[in-house]
Every structure is written in structure tokens, then in C-alpha cells.
């Protein structure tokens, strides 16, 4: 069976490690990137089935900008995005973008850190299938 591919973009190596460990345990193929630049390269080369994206990386809303950029690219717009962030306010940014520009939604799901592993698995399944 074709293993589902998940790309995680986060500048926190520990978070990448934990998520990889959990998701690989459930037979997902996990790719990681620690910046949006590296993320874009892997996104194009690996073509994942799901993207886990952190909002705050080098800049405050790098993740949101990255998601917006992805939505505007024909070849990448179909990949579901799950935003993970330690900042509860970040969801407001996500909500604001939904309200402001109704014609595009930059993310499909939002999760606040710390993430319950079961919830993570549940949401991953939901978005991939």
C-alpha cells in the first residue's frame, strides 16, 4: 500500500522529532524542514499528502504567509494544511484571514501546542482521507 507522506515545517527540532516518531509509528512517511525555504523545496520534490506548519518561525507570521503563498500556486493549492502553533493568538490571525478574504482559506485546521498526540493522529487521518 502506498504510504501517505506528511511534511512538517517547524523551526523547533524537538517538535519535528516528536511528531516524526509518533506519525512514523502509524506508518506515515514523514519529511521535515526547519524553515519555509527548505519547506518549499521539499514540498515541490516530495509532494506530501499533508502539511503540518508552524506559524512563528523566523518572523511572526511566516507560516501564514507561507500558507497563503501555497494557496496561490496551482500545483500546491490542493495539499491540506494543518497549522500548529504555541501562540493561541495565532488562531485569531488565522480567523482574521478567513473573515477578510472569504475566497481563500489558508489552512484547513488549527492546533495549539501542546498537542494531544491522539488528536494529532485523528486530525491527520481526517485531512488525508
Amino acid at each position: 500500500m502506498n504510504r501517505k507522506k506528511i511534511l512538517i515545517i517547524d523551526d523547533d527540532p524537538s517538535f519535528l522529532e516528536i511528531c516524526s516518531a509518533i506519525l512514523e509509528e502509524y506508518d506515515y512517511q514523514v519529511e521535515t524542514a526547519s524553515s519555509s525555504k527548505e519547506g518549499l523545496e521539499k514540498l515541490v520534490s516530495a509532494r506530501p499528502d499533508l502539511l503540518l506548519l508552524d506559524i512563528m518561525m523566523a518572523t511572526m507570521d511566516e507560516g501564514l504567509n507561507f500558507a497563503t503563498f501555497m494557496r496561490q500556486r496551482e500545483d500546491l493549492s490542493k495539499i491540506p494544511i494543518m497549522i500548529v502553533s504555541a501562540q493561541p493568538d495565532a488562531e485569531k490571525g488565522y480567523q482574521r484571514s478567513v473573515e477578510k478574504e472569504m475566497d481563500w482559506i489558508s489552512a484547513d485546521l488549527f492546533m495549539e501546542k501542546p498537542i494531544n498526540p491522539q488528536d494529532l493522529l485523528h486530525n491527520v487521518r481526517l485531512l488525508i482521507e
Partner: protein
Amino acid sequence: MHWFKRLKVKQQIAVSTVLVVLFIATVSWLSIQYVVLPNLSNEITKRGGIVAKSIARRAQQYLTADDRSNLLDMIFTEKWTQPYLAYVFISNEVDGVIAHTLLQPFPQSLLGVNLLPADQIQQTRLVKTCFGDVYDTAMAIHEESHRIGTVRVGLSKVLVDETMGRLLHILLALLALIISIGVVLTNWFSRQITRPILQLSDLTRDLISCNFQACAHLGKRVECWLTKDCNQTICPAHERGRPPCWLLDTRPPDRAEAGLFSRKLEECSRCQVYKENVGDEIEQLAAAFCHMIHRLDLYQEELKLTNEELRKLNRNYMKMLRFVSHELKTPIANSSMSAQALLQSIFGELTPPQERMVKLIYSNLSSSMEMVRNYLDLSRIETGELLFQPRRLHLASEVVAPALNHLITLIDSSRIRVEDQTDEGVILEVDKELLQVVYGNLIGNACKYGREGGVIRLQAKDQGVSCRLEVWNDGPGVAREKMGQLFQKFSRIQQSQKEAAKGTGLGLFISRKIVELHGGKIWAEGVEGEWINFVIELPKSQEGSRENESEEDLDHRR
């Protein structure tokens, strides 16, 4: 005298002075009426007697010599020199009237109105004659012991009264003048006294409204050595700065300067400024007042600076707290996630002792996470950076349910039953995230401090313009008098040693701040040992927020 006390000082002075003037005027008027005027009129009528006596003395020679022409000449002269005289005539026992000053035939009736008895020398009577009322004086003319005739002198009452009237008018005019001068002087004096007092009260009003620049015009004498061109080197006030010399603290400043200072103080007895001002109480009061205001102004400035510094310091401290908390949040979140993954057997079943240890790790990490969240919220509140975005939403589905979902692990582990009776129809304009924090804090507290196996009951009611939200539990609660303290920063009402370590003492403070940000109120009710209920009252809409969304929009979002 209550009415008098209600008057202003200026009016009190005026009224008392007017009363004094009126009293003096009344006494003067009474004394004029009953002492001066009768005496005067007495004096005038006596004048008739004096004239009669003088005529009688001279008439005696002419009568003895029977020189009638000189007699007539004498009485005519007398009549014309005395304007009050109505008539003068001389009569004897034999011939009747022998000389008179009348230019008409002598009316005989005049003779009988004031007949002098034989044993009397002089008699004065007020009689009615054809010349009107007359003070008639009869004076006997004697030669040795024989009466040889009688002089009758008539003083016209009308003329006397006219003179008295004129006198009375002059006196009255004088009295009126005295009263008017009194009133004007009173007014002037009272204004002199009340003006500085009024100025002071104006100043006080300025002071109340924090206008410390108001006394600039009153304080010009404060810098006396500038305005009076004094010798600065010998003025003790000059070196001591702001207080004017007549308010100077005369204690020597310190030992080294003591000798010089006392010598300088001696100079004050020769100083013109000091002499001029030391006796003026109102000026002194004003200067003291200005001095006080000046000091207050300086004090306020100092306070402002200190306040600003403290605020900056607190801000920096809060920023640091935020940075540290934020930096801590990532590793705690990661560790918490790993521990949870182990507990959820994602990496295989754990042995019971392993599970016990990992549970311990997880629970410690969870409380650390809560602490970090609280500190982050606190720093946002204190630096004013709390993001507040209210919007209309369904309380039950958009706030209460997610908050409960968030706390599910804690609720399960405390074996507490949650009865969510939140009315589905409650719609509020609130910040979803922030109100979730409030619910999280209140439910979290109920789990931590509540009775094991107890109940938490959530209720919400629409009250028209506001909504009443309640988080009730049957835990031991706190004493009524300590309930106010609950919402203060870092306050922890310690029930036992075990509970003391449970929280940061920030949750309820943060909740209160969030509720207040919404324009609402939060308080606690309860009976110690039985139950406690946290009540929140929130306005249904926020002022100045966006237009109300339609119900469809809301339902769509749900």
C-alpha cells in the same frame, strides 16, 4: 442667629457694621428728639426772659422820668434786632398800655392773657393771640419796692419752631451722611478682608483640579530679594530657597553654618521686606499657601517621574517575564506531548510503574504549562498588549464546549462530574479566546480545589442587556470575608499545605481583568465548607464594536 451664620464673611462684616451704624443713628436721633431739641427750645424761650429783663431795666429810668418817646424808641430798637419777637409792650396799673411795637391799634385782649400776679417778678406762658401762638413773658418793672409797670415780650412760636426745624434737618442730614460713609467704609473694609480669602479659596479650587500654576500672581513677593533689591548676601531666606523670609524656618541649617545663620537672622530686624511683611497676616497666609502649593507641585512632579520610572521598570519586567515564559512554553509543550504519547501507548504498552512515573511527569508538565500560560496572560495585561477582538457568538458551543474539551484530562483525573446547563440561546459579543481563558481558569480551579467525586455546574442566563454566567461547585469554598481577596494578583487562600502548591495565584486576577475588559463584573458567592459559586455579569454587546451580524451568519459559522 442661624441666618447670620449662613451669610458670607463679607456680608457678615457688612451686616454687623450696618447694625452698629444704625444703633448709633437711633441713639443720636433719640437724644436729639428728647434731649437736644427740648433744651434748645427752652433756651430760645429763655431768650424772651432775658430780652424782657433788659427792657425792664432800661424802661424803669424812662418810666420814672416819664420819657415815653425814648421808651418807645428803645422797645422798637429791641423789636427789630430780635427777629423772633412778635411784639413788645409796656403797661402800668393806671394807664394800661403806655408803649407798644404794634403798627395797629393795640388789641386789649392781649393784656389779659398773661397777667403777672403781684408777688411774682417774671412769668412765661404759651398763649394764643391774634399773632398766633406766642411765648409771652411778663416782667415786672420796679422802682425800689413798688411795681411801676410790666414789660410784655411775645416770642412767635412759629418762628421758633421754624428755627428748630432747620436745625433738625441739618442734624438729620449729618446723620444720613455718617450712615452712608459708614456703609461705604464697611463695604471697602470687608472687601479688603475677603478679597484675599476669596483668592485663596479660588486657589484651593485650582489646586483640587491639579492646576499648580495658579498661584503665580500671588507668589510675587516670594522672591522678595529680587523685587525689593535686598542684599542677597545677608538675607537668610535667599540661600534657603523658596520660602519667603517671614515664613523662614529659623532653626539653623547645620552646625557649620549655625553662627553665620544667626547673624543673618539678626539682619532681619533691619530688613525692610521683613518689617513690611511680618505683620500682614493675610499676605502671610497667601504666601504660606503658595509655598505649600509650590511644594505640592514639586512633590507631584517627583511622583510623576517616579511613577513613570516604575511603570517602565514594570514593563521591562513584564516583557522579560513574557520572553522567559514564551521560551519555556516550547520545551514544556514538547515534553508534555512526548509524555502524553507514551501514556497513550503509541510506542507500546508501559509497565504499571513506568505508567505511574510518566503520569507524574505529565501532570507536572501540565501544571507548568498552566503557569506559563498565566504568566503570559499577566504580562499581556500589564503591558496593555492583550489582543481584544469581541464578536457575537453562541456561548455554549463556541466558548464553554471548547473550554471543557481543553480540560478533559484534568476533569477525568479529578473524578468530578460537570453539569453543563448553559442555555443554548445565549448569544454574547465577547472575545472567544479570552472568555475561554476565564472558563478554563474557573473550571480548572473547581477541579483543583473541589471535592473529589463532586459536581461542577455551569449555567448562563440572558438577562436582557447583560448575561449572568455561573460556575458553581460543591467544594469547600472560602470564607465570605476572604472572597474579595480571591481576585487579587498573586493571592492564594491557603486551605492546606497541599493546595498551596497548586497554582500561581494569577488565574482569578487574569479572569477579573478579562471580564473588566469586556465591561463586566466577576464575584464569588458561597458558604464555606459547602459550596462556592463564581458569577460573571457581561454586557451582551460591546460599545463601538462592529454592526450586529445576522443570525444566519452565526449559524453558518457554527
